[in-house]
């Protein structure tokens, strides 16, 4: 039922989480070491993929260059050296935070992407916010009242958002809300305010208006997923003995929902949300392209079309590190939330 959600690649050593905080530390350290190995492997793959396949000299050198100029440029960029030497140089530079200079902007690729990260993260968190504060209540409602008309509508929306490509939904939003109705703007970030030196949109009314459509577009898939998960979890939990007991005890419905039901359906939801966050960053490329949102997703698509290799490499390395980090956090939270994981460890 859960699409696009994979088991963690490090699933075998279950995080030992319990009274002993040392075991948690050991687990995190071991995972960090594994992550370093993974980053090394991925950097090699990315390097081979982007630099070694195809000839970078063709892009760097003007077609009308003389043979002497060609040799000069190839030598200058170290392209005449064996592949392992090139990778060594790339890696040594990468460790010092130098992933090359963009061909187009003639600036540090890492810096260019770092400048765009806040815009992408702002959008991603806005969509996460929508997912949590719309998805969980809607899922709870349709779990409690599965036969009402509104919960059938909710499930219809969920099925739709689940299977329809996100970019098409984005286009339809632009068509309906920006072009035909003219309610909301369809491109850019709007007015931004500096918060701790980082420009953000969510503090101005104009910025929020610009953010509504892209945030909804990015949230659609997650929203559908969370509605389904919450609904399934709720239906399972309300049949359990402890909810029946709580009802029999005469607890207020609000307390039963918030404490007994929600708490027990929350574990899979949080795990899935953590994994979905990575997907959100990937799909931000689509949403940012549609809504001309100046994040790193739009930058990478623009860079691919002009083959700006340093930016592509830098983006991929940042994404790899981000994913490893997200997976680590998800695993730690998961073990902290689910007491069963701890019980198994103790035996």
């Amino acid at each position, binding site marked *: 039922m859960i699409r696009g959600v994979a*088991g963690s690649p490090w699933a075998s050593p279950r995080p030992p989480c319990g009274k002993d905080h040392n075991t948690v530390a050991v687990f995190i350290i071991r995972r960090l070491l594994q992550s370093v190995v993974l980053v090394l492997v991925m950097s090699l793959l990315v390097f081979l993929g982007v630099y070694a396949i195809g000839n970078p000299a063709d892009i760097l050198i003007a077609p009308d260059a003389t043979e002497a100029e060609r040799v000069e440029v190839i030598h200058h960029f170290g392209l005449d050296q064996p592949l392992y030497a090139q990778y060594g140089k790339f890696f040594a530079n990468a460790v010092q935070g130098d992933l090359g200079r963009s061909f187009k902007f003639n600036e540090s690729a890492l810096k260019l992407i770092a400048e765009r990260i806040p815009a992408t993260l702002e959008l991603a968190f806005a969509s996460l916010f929508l997912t949590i504060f719309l998805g969980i209540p809607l899922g709870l409602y349709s779990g409690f009242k599965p036969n009402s008309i509104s919960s059938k509508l909710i499930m219809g929306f969920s099925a739709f958002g689940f299977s329809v490509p996100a970019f098409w939904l984005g286009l339809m939003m632009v068509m309906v809300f920006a072009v035909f109705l003219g309610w909301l703007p369809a491109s850019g970030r709007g007015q931004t305010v500096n918060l701790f030196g980082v420009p953000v949109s969510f503090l101005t009314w104009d910025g929020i208006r610009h953010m509504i459509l892209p945030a909804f577009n990015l949230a659609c898939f997650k929203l559908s997923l969370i509605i389904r998960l919450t609904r399934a979890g709720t239906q399972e939990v309300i049949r359990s003995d402890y909810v029946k007991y709580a009802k029999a005890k005469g607890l207020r419905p609000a307390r039963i929902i918030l404490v007994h039901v929600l708490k027990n359906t929350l574990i899979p939801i949080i795990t899935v949300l953590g994994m979905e966050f990575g997907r959100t960053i990937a799909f931000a490329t689509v949403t940012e392209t549609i809504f001309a949102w100046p994040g790193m997703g739009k930058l990478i698509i623009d860079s691919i079309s002009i083959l700006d290799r340093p930016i592509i490499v830098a983006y991929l390395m940042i994404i790899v590190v981000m994913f490893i980090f997200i997976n680590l956090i998800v695993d730690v939270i998961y073990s902290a939330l689910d007491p069963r994981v701890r019980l198994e460890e103790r035996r």
Partner: protein
Amino acid sequence: MRKDAISGKGALARFRERPLGKAIAEYCESVSAVMAFFVVLIFVVAALFASLIAPQNPYDLAKLDLLDGTLEPLSKSFSGSVYLLGTDEQGRDMLSAILYGLRISLSVGVISTIVAFVFGTSLGLIAAYKGGRFESILMRIVDLQLSFPALLIALVLLVVLGQGVDKITLALVIVHWAYFARAARGSAMAERNREYIEAARALRLGDLRIIFRHLMPNVMPSIIVIATTMVARAISTEATLSFLGIGLPITEPSLGLLISNGFRYLLSGKYWISFYPGIALVVVIVALNMMGDRLRDVLNPRLKR
């Protein structure tokens, strides 16, 4: 069979008692699933015979008239014929463009799924049957790959491989084989200790024969379910990548590329260039997913009884 002949049952009734017949009969109990099947069938036929059905060959430049550019749906052309779904900026009939685009989208989706199906299922089955180091290494790779979003992996692969129908098909195979491998291994794990496998081993049948003649048929139902949704997902991913301008070149316009092309005109209110290819895409994907959902209900042994 002889008993059936005595009791006077027809061939159809006999077929209904076999597993395939039962599954088909059960599938047909859902009206929406049957409708989804016919929708997919119609689209497949339309794509196959696009060159016969289409009012115009949309890529024969001699047939296009720039004077007919960006006409609204149902408007008359310069030469008198009617453009049912309007035209794009080059005066291309959108209905024809959609039919030709459907052909590319469907073939990329189906071919990539078939290849991924063969590779992934074989590897998954061998892993489950052989076990040991091969299994653990393969499953590590599968888990690692599945922890990254499919779109991102496909994007990286296309950066490396370049554009083209063959390239995007290859990229989709590399992205999707892991799903088949995981599912095939998962189902085969449950089957590998069953008596019939033990019996086949006792008969000293070859490993490959046991895997493909005995294990595979029993794993098939769950894999077929995945294959249906995978076609939908492959079509969707291809459209997304083409929309981003990194999937297919302009010479091979799939539905995604048509939508991308119309996006510029969408903002000025000329919605039909993007809208109708999008509807075709969504209808295909939703119908395939509905078929997949129904197949899951019919073929999943865990949901029975």
